[in-house]
């Protein structure tokens, strides 16, 4: 009889754990959260740390490349990110634009390599680093608009959510999972959904924006106080990212 009892305790425990784990939006720990993606060998070993890294505080003029970066804004080069779904690679012209007047590094092998491409009028065959499957569509523009323009977060922080701490890297390397669960995780945190009564509806159902209309939007025009609400609506169906 005792064995029966203990068995039941065991089973109920099993039930509770399986059920709560399975039903409670499983977000298993990401194996790739801190690990890095494959090391990509680029045609030119581009030093992100040198360009975007923090200035050496002791030497604000920073003439020595070994002593810190130049804190260039991400979007100075990746200028398409705020205007397009695609962040894009800066044009070669952009690199040359600065480097033709930076005499100090002109003779470095990497810069010479760069100028070789320029002279041949050939684009640098940069390799993909953050390569998503073809059926995944990420919109850079919307994320920049939201984090940088609306919430005034620093660019490097906002970009870093997905791209990692690029200012520490030389050649960029994937450092976040970029899996679907990883994406969804963030969205669930940032777009909490509450039911009509105000209770948070778990971590699900962006869909409920469907039932909770933004006040006064039935018409074409929107009241001023609602515009933020419209801007903030996150994805609520699979089609947002897969189409």
């Amino acid at each position, binding site marked *: 009889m005792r064995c029966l009892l203990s*068995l039941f305790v065991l*089973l109920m425990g099993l039930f509770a754990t399986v059920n709560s784990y399975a*039903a409670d939006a499983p977000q298993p720990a990401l194996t790739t959260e801190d690990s890095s993606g494959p090391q990509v060998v680029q045609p030119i070993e581009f030093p992100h740390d040198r360009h975007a890294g923090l200035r050496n505080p002791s030497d604000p003029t920073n003439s020595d490349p070994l002593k810190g970066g130049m804190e260039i804004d991400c979007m100075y080069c990746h200028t398409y990110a705020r205007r397009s779904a695609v962040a894009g690679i800066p044009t070669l012209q952009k690199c040359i634009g600065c480097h033709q007047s930076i005499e100090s590094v002109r003779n470095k092998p990497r810069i010479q390599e760069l100028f070789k491409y320029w002279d041949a009028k050939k684009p640098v065959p940069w390799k993909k680093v953050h390569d998503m499957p073809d059926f995944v569509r990420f919109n850079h523009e919307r994320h920049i608009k939201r984090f940088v323009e609306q919430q005034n977060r620093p660019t490097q922080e906002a970009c870093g959510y997905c791209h990692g701490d690029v200012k520490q890297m030389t050649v960029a390397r994937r450092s976040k999972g970029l899996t679907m669960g990883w994406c969804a995780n963030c969205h669930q945190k940032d777009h909490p959904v509450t039911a009509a009564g105000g209770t948070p509806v778990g971590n699900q*159902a*962006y869909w409920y924006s469907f039932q909770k209309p933004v006040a006064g939007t039935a018409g074409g025009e929107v009241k001023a106080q609602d515009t933020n609400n419209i801007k903030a609506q996150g994805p*609520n*169906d*699979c089609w947002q990212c897969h189409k």
Partner: protein
Amino acid sequence: MSQRHLLALFNNFEDAEAAIYELRAADIKGFNFDDLTLKSPIEHHEVESVLGQRSANVQWFSLGGSLLGGLLGFFLISGSQANFYAQMKGGKPIVPFPPNFVLTFEMCVLGGVFITILGFLICAGLPAKRSPLYNAKVSEDQIGVLVKADESAMAKIKGVFLNHQALEIQEEVSK
């Protein structure tokens, strides 16, 4: 005093039954009647009247298993439907009853069957080590009675068995 095993083989169930009756009535010192095991090629219901009602608990496992399965089924399904943020079906609620009940039923059966089997293994003590005395005849056509008793009771028990036309008596070699 050390205990030893003794296995007697009978040609048919009546003989074995008679022998057990006698053993029970004899009340031999050094032999507890509960230490008697009947081994047979088929099931004999009648044995219960001889050995007394020894309980079978498997059905409780079945009940528990099916309840567990059903609960797990319903909540796992409903819970995941409530959490899967994009699984909206036009014309249907997010947690619909008819499909969930179907699956609850299946889970109920699944849990029931699995836990019943588990219960069977537990209650029947399977998988078991083979007992020290075993004869392949038991799985063919003979009835075996296995007793465990003190050394001192052995002779008496043997006597009883022989009285009832035991075909063969095997004794555990003394340690």
